[in-house]
């Protein structure tokens, strides 16, 4: 029997358990969606309430001769542009990374103990990071000798001045900010902050520091 026949035979049987699970899974997805909407409305409601308080306070101040000192003016925001409008567009390949770099990234993220977990998810014997930027899309791959490129990350990106903002495309929502500079064909990034949580025991910060900040990238 050919491989083709074997595969078709192996995949042939249906799995009725998934059909039986569908109503319960549907209820769970709907419940999670409701919770998400409640949280979002709560945040929006809080912001609206805060805005209302400010408006009332200001109106009140106008009516009775304002005595409150004006707040410091907000910093002038720089324009936010999709990454496609920046010199980031294209494919960037990092210098080589090794186990010592992984341990360093974990240490800089404040959790040196996660280095072993990270190393377990990375090719042994060194690798490079490849960033593919297409417009506002970032795809990050890990490249090692004798293996296929492995997708490590996919994010939506935007730039504000020298800040590069990466928003998770899949999985739990999170936003990470790196400072970035491009000089000629060299891209250098420096970790700023993240709201990404912990995945499988490893904080998002450790991955970001490792993948994007450890060494510079070239086109």
């Amino acid at each position, binding site marked *: *029997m*050919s*491989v*083709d026949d*074997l*595969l*078709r*035979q*192996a*995949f*042939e*049987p249906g*799995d009725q*358990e*998934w*059909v039986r*699970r*569908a*109503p319960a*899974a*549907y209820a*769970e*997805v*709907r419940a*999670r*969606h409701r919770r*998400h909407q409640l949280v979002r409305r709560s945040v929006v409601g809080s912001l609206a309430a805060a805005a209302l308080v400010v408006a009332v306070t200001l109106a009140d101040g106008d009516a009775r001769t304002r005595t409150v000192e004006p707040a410091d003016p907000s910093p002038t925001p720089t324009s936010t542009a999709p990454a496609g409008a920046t010199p980031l567009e294209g494919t960037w390949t990092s210098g080589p990374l090794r186990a010592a770099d992984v341990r360093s990234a974990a240490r800089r993220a404040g959790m040196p103990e996660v280095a072993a*977990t990270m190393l*377990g*998810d990375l090719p042994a014997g060194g690798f490079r990071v490849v960033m593919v930027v297409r417009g506002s899309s970032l795809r990050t791959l*890990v490249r090692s000798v004798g*293996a*296929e490129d*492995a*997708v*490590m*990350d*996919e994010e939506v990106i935007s730039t504000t001045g020298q800040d590069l903002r990466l928003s998770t*495309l*899949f*999985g739990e929502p999170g936003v990470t900010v790196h400072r970035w500079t491009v000089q000629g064909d060299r891209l250098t990034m420096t970790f700023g902050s993240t709201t990404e949580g912990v*995945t*499988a*025991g*490893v904080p998002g910060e450790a*991955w970001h520091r490792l993948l994007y900040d450890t060494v510079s990238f070239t086109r």
Partner: protein
Amino acid sequence: MGRDGFDADFDTFFLHEFPRVARTVHHIVGDRARAEELTQDAFLEVLRHWRTVSDYDRPDLWLRRVAIRKAQRERHRGWRRTELERLAAPGTVVDAPPTPAPEVLEAVRRLAPGQRAVVVLFYLEDRPMAEIAEILGIKESTGWSQLHTARKHLAVALDQEVSDVG
């Protein structure tokens, strides 16, 4: 479309697609509980963007792209370690998908992630390569190449001949 119709469309979509996508993800991650979580996560993304996604020509392809990307992302951020440990200990898999040929599915699970996704979509879902390429965000030629390589690996693993497909 009214709210009722909007919701009803999603309901129909969910009940039709959930068993199919969950089964596909199950073959990719090799764990039933995790496959269900990932599939639910993907549907949650779909529901959040349903107004947009429902206008797509093929929302089913978008759903699979999200689900498979989630599975692959997790593989490389922690899950792979667990899976490798499990693969290193044959016999501990208690929830393998039903099949008359478990050794074939075991060989599929040992393929590289990209090859495995192509094989599952091609043989399990019986999708044309153009759709597989769209789901995985790769060129059609890359999909054929991955399928060809996967079949060669499987032939060696299963001690079988490779015949032409496509």
